[in-house]
């Protein structure tokens, strides 16, 4: 037995220096990698990523379940092969992605993953998922990465404690942080502005009073130009190629139901429809209404130019939808879902992603990880 302990201790000390655990004093932590085998570790030569022409796959960010200590994972759906691989981050990096990853964006040669519970932004090679860098925000750069998007050579992360931090894609460091409303969620870029949904989601005791707004931030100045009043508890936001912004206010899960509102470029807000999940392709909104306590969900789309609504968007519903994405090139629809236990979504077991053709015909089902709510395309 003594021998066993000695062996264990020896093994432990030999491995320990290889890994730097998170340290509050360090801004960014270099995770171990072999630069020679990893060309992606070289910085991008141009901050502006080249315009992609196709999506070859879909990354699924499985949030896991921090209250059960199920860490998040990354799945990848390969469109050519029609297969899903799970645990792709762990498999290549030999470590866990972290607690409750929420969202990711593919930009340039990299993918940026916002990991809320672990309070990090993981930057990986977009093709291999090999880690390039792990950004740990300092106390002045916000806490709790929530949503992540990219524009004009910068990556923007909403921080749940009320900030948006900007990552420079050349230096891979946070180069600016801006205070927005409380508990910001999703963001979108339109008309040279960054729009941030201020949910105030932690303040439901006071009816989300300090949220109910969208911060409109000038991309060049990175200052808040305007705070636009919207519905209760805005969490999702997207924009059309025409330049209109659509925000989804979740309501209070009680007497105020979730609704979608349009913000035009004059900052005028109008109600559009009721929905709880939303995404956009070009000028078409793809919507799912799965209100709290409802027995049946509706799937539909709206052409924002004509106002035409397509009912029964898909031919086969999922059990409990939590994410929707539409391939910007093919129009194929991807809807992620929990599996069910006794009529309730199961937060401890794997979920799945259904694939539909552009006209809503079910084509494939992919089993992915626990809580598969973040979807982002691998753009080439």
């Amino acid at each position: 037995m003594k021998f066993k302990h000695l062996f264990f201790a020896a093994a432990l000390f030999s491995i320990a220096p290889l890994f730097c655990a998170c340290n509050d004093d360090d801004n960014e932590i270099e995770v171990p990698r072999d630069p020679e085998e990893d060309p992606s570790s070289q910085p991008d030569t141009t901050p502006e990523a080249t315009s992609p022409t196709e999506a070859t796959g879909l990354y699924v960010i499985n949030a896991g379940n921090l209250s059960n200590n199920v860490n998040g994972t990354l799945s990848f759906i390969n469109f050519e092969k029609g297969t899903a691989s799970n645990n792709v981050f762990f498999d290549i990096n030999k470590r866990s992605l972290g607690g409750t990853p929420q969202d990711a964006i593919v930009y340039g040669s990299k993918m940026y993953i916002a990991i809320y519970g672990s309070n990090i932004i993981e930057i990986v090679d977009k093709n291999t998922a090999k880690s390039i860098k792990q950004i740990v925000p300092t106390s002045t750069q916000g806490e709790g990465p929530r949503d992540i998007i990219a524009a004009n050579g910068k990556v923007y992360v909403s921080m749940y404690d009320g900030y948006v931090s900007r990552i420079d894609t050349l230096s891979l460091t946070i180069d600016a942080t801006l205070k927005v409303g409380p508990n910001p969620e999703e963001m979108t870029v339109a008309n040279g502005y960054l729009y941030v949904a201020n949910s105030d989601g932690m303040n439901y005791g006071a009816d989300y009073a300090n949220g109910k707004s969208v911060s409109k931030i000038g991309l060049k100045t990175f200052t808040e130009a305007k705070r636009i009043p919207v519905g209760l508890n805005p969490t999702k936001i997207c924009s059309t190629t025409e330049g209109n912004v659509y925000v989804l206010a979740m309501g209070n899960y009680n007497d105020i139901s979730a609704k979608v509102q349009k913000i035009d470029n004059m900052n005028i807000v109008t109600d559009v429809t009721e929905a709880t999940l939303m995404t956009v392709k070009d000028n078409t909104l793809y919507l799912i209404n799965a209100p709290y306590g409802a027995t049946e969900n509706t799937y539909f789309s709206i052409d924002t130019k004509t106002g035409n609504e397509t009912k029964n968007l898909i031919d086969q519903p999922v059990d409990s939808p939590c994410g929707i994405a539409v391939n910007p090139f093919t129009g194929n629809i991807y809807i992620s879902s929990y599996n069910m236990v006794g009529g309730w979504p199961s937060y401890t077991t794997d979920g799945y992603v259904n694939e539909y053709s552009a006209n809503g015909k079910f084509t494939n089902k992919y089993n992915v990880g626990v809580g598969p709510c973040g979807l982002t395309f691998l753009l080439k």
Partner: protein
Amino acid sequence: MKETDIFYRLKLSYFLLYSIILLLPNITQGQEIGDTIIGKVHKITDVIVTAERTKQQVKSISPFQQLNKKQLQQQGITDIADALRRFSGVNIKDYGGAGGMKTISVRSLGAKHTAVVYDGVTLSDCQSGQIDLSRFSIDNIQQISLTIGDNEDIFVPARTVASAAALKLQSISPDFSNKKNHLTGQIKTGSFGMINPLIRYEQKFNEKISASTTGEFMRADNLYPFTLVNGDYVSKEKRYNNNIQTYRGELNLYISPNNRSTLNGKIYYYDTDQQLPGAVILYNAKSREKLRERNFFSQVHYRTYWENNLSLLINGKFNWSQSHYHDEGGKYPGGELNDRYFQREYYTSGALLYTPTSHWSMVYAADYIYNNLNANTPNNTSPYRHSILQTVTLRYQTDNITAVAILLGSIYLNGAKEGNGAENRRKLSPSFSFSWKPCTDGQLYLRASYKDIFRVATFSENYFDRMGSRDLRPEKAQQYNVGITYQNNFTSWLPAISLTLDGYYNKVKDKIVAMPYNMFIWNMVNLGKVEIWGVDANINTTFQLAKHYSLLLTGNYTYQYAVDKTDPEVVYYKHQIAYTPRHSAGASLALENPFINASLHATGVSKRYIASENRPSNEMDGYIEYGLSLYRSFKIKKFTYNLRGDIINLGNKQYDIVKSYPMPGRSYKLTCSIHF
């Protein structure tokens, strides 16, 4: 039989004798009650007292296990959770360290199905429905026992039988056999900045009145190191934000108005201020949570008997508790969260025992409980509950047969000051237990029992924030047990051996669980069915090596096949439920000798799963933890000194009981006490 008293010599006999007189209500549980023990007590010799104690576990008609102060020492037990690991059929959830919450689940039924009884009165937490055992100090405990189902000890409040199992803690009672007052001072210190002084004073005022008071303080940094394994990477970490300080005080009054009655009173106060390290989150060691808890209760206990074969038992209690959870961070409105909860309980119980013949006894018990909860949290409705519990119990007892039947009638009336109350519940719950001694001269017993019990939803489950459901049905638990027990005294070198073996089948229906809509909105629902097949085994032996040298061996083993039967369509159908090992076991070996007593012990469990699905990523390795204790007591003039050293987790094994709540590695404790 005469030889068996050798290792129990000391002054234990007097000690126990007086314990019985002074704390009758508690000691009598499980003993020959009903037939007026007070009349007989003066005849009980030390030998009988000693034998009775071990015999109890064997004679009990349903699984019953206990550890007294001496056994706690002999088995090297360092805290309450450690004591419970030496019982079979028990699953301890331990969040690690001195301040980490520790709860007990018996036979996979869940923590909320076990009543925790302190000095004869059930402790309650109407909010969470479970008792954190880390708040009780092992140094103040005379005896710990666990009853699964109902045993022959029938003269108890109705509430005691209203749970699937009862864990009874009995505090130290004074011994005035040689002196009218005693002072005990103790100091304990250990790893991770732990220091724990205790003082106790006991005074006998006259033949009828005596009192004792205990005060205790404990603080610890709890900044213990642990090893974090993340895939191929292993790092040395520390458990930050984990300090604790605790004050505990107790005042007891013992009155014997006459030789047929006892009246005990207790006042208890507990105050703890601690940081909560939370679960270990990868890449994020920040933790700013704090918890302050305060608890005050006072209780009275009166018992008397009359010549007409009637005995009366009255209990009363007032309980107040407050908890304040604090967290900081920019995500909260105003940068911080302060949740405050206040609970009150008023409790009264009366029980009447009638013993018309030496074979038959009957009990009628009626309890009334009022609970309320106030909070400063959003959506607080200030709920309250009136509970009326009544039992009718019948016991038949001969030399060879004991049979007990209990019918419990429960009425739960719910309301809320602001808003709607949860649905009221009424229910009848039967319980039957039976034991048979096939040979008149042997010490072999066969036993069987059945109990149909339930628990109502806790206030958290009914009302908490946006997730409580007011229409939750009670969670039902059915228990079946069959067992065989044996005790014998063979020769001079093997003076005592006792064995118990029980097999059981439990069924839990309408399990109350939280189901999500999204990360903000959860809902409490009756969903879940669990079936449990299990085996519990205990062994206790003493080897007399030579005069003054004895070797004590104890062992316990538990097998639990506890599977989810909720939904055949679900991937985890028939999977072992979370945090439930198939096998768990404990063993201790103590060598008692005139120089320094030593105890080596081990407890271990097989692999567990952290969630419902039994897949490799949810798997947690099994572990074995070893401990070593050395202790010695000696007398100089009128002073008795006790010295004890403990090494906990001797092998420095890194393990978690709850995933991401690492347990401390090797640690040390040193205890010195003076008593006079």
